[in-house]
């Protein structure tokens, strides 16, 4: 038998983010090799905008904001939130279902690295969606906003995405992996509708308008609309606080679900 001399092994500091670069590379080439996911994800918000925003893009809804700009912010938010839930959350659930996560959980890979790579990938694919929509808005609907507003809009839509990244993670680890997509649809579609993401909130029934401020997607939307000067009567800061609150809440639930999962096997 051979002795493994533990004393003489180099003691390297453990880096939880070790491998992040290559994991990220893998996630991105998977995205590029899967046009069946990327193309519909990019086209969906553009399709919504074409249907509901393009016909009356120039119409003023007050405060100098056009229907076109308003709906560009709405569908941009929609694209970002759906990427967080369907790209990130259900993607993790799928790998968990395969047993892949169980294998990586037995390696020195730190889960924080894995989740970081997934989150960055979701943000990048969200940004591609957003850029495509904005370019479409500028070129086809002639929407013009100051460069500064475009930048701020992008940053705030990404901020609004955060609670949904955490929610995606929570749903990804809740219940069995096959249920993640239907659960996500069940939550996301009605919530987007009731938050005024599909149709402006003032066109919705009164009880939905009363409910909206308690929904995370409402505050994500408000972050975008406030940037254009078309927000509700609450302050921008209050929406940021709601957003952070939902992020912390979902993150806590996600950590709970992750720990509870304990590398279960699924047939």
């Amino acid at each position, binding site marked *: 038998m051979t002795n493994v001399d533990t004393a003489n092994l180099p003691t390297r500091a453990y880096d939880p983010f070790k491998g992040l670069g290559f994991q990220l590379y893998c996630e991105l*080439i998977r995205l590029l090799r899967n046009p069946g996911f990327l193309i519909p994800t990019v086209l969906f918000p553009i399709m919504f905008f074409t249907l509901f925003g393009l016909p009356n893009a120039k119409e003023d809804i007050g405060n100098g904001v056009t229907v076109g700009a308003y709906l560009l912010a709405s569908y941009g938010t929609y694209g970002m939130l759906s990427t967080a839930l369907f790209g990130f959350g259900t993607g993790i659930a799928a790998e968990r279902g*395969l047993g892949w996560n169980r294998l990586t*959980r*037995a390696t020195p890979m730190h889960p924080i690295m894995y989740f970081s790579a997934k989150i960055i990938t979701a943000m990048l694919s969200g940004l591609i969606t957003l850029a495509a929509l904005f370019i479409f808005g500028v070129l086809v609907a002639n929407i013009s906003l100051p460069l500064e507003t475009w930048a701020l809009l992008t940053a705030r839509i990404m901020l609004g995405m955060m609670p949904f990244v955490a929610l995606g993670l929570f749903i990804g680890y809740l219940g069995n992996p096959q249920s993640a997509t239907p659960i996500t649809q069940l939550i996301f579609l009605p919530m987007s509708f009731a938050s005024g993401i599909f149709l402006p909130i003032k066109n919705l029934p009164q009880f939905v308008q009363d409910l909206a401020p308690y929904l995370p997607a409402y505050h994500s939307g408000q972050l975008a609309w406030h940037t254009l000067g078309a927000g509700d009567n609450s302050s921008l800061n209050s929406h940021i606080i709601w957003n952070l609150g939902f992020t912390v809440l979902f993150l806590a639930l996600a950590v709970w679900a992750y720990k509870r999962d304990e*590398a279960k096997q699924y047939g």
Partner: protein
Amino acid sequence: MTLAVELENASKSFGSVQALRNVSIKVDAGEVVAFLGPNGAGKTTAISIMLGLRSPSSGGARIFGQNPREPKNRARIGVMLQESGVPGLLKVRELIQLFTQFYNAPLMVSKVLEMANLTEKKDAIASALSGGQKQRLYFALAICGNPDVLFLDEPSVALDVESRRAFWQEISGFAKTGKTVILTTHYLEEADALANRIIVINKGEIVAQGSPAQIKSRVGGKNVSFKLEAGNAVMLENLQGVQRFSKTGESINLYTLEPEKVLQEVFARGLQISNLNVAGAGLEEAFMEITEQGASK
């Protein structure tokens, strides 16, 4: 001698099912240890606890003296689990390279491909590999970090006889470099081919352990069955070396570790038998034997 892996009074229950009862195991660096037992014996539970995939309900597990639940304490282990699945759209070499990133001093990807006999398949999309090729990929992922301890959970269960032998060679090759290997299997033959110590586990408890020769002498028995005219059964009395005996009408069934000797004796007594059948006993049967021996002690 360095202690590589240790379970200390580890128990695990899932609801009312007790999967592991108070199991203590010490594996020294350089040992090749096989956990042998039927399906549902608690082998996978034991390995999951050693790997930090599960917390024991009571007791503890250590890898080189550290808690395996912490990712950094898994830096020196490589793992092959059952039914891992692979994320879609990644190539074989990409997955291996991804795994090498997790380790401090990994092997070269080309070397790993060679060791796992996957060089020809390096640009194939991993999820499209055949069952046997996938198993080799999992082996590649397990060894690519150049681990000191290799864990293999039922490594050859999906393989045909030929690939199984080739795979054993790959594992032996790795073990010969002085590495520690811990595997689970329900094939006595596999444990015998690979391990220098076999731990027999059944119903969540260690029922026997020892060298392959020792274990084989206890669980390597055969079922001998034949037909004999009903009146002649008396003449089978006091047959040496028979562990278990049963008779239904003309059919005689016995379990023995020395079938040749027993049959010699049967013929020496001048008995006319027909429908002779000698078959390797399943592990279940062998465990019944061991458990009975344990109970009668």
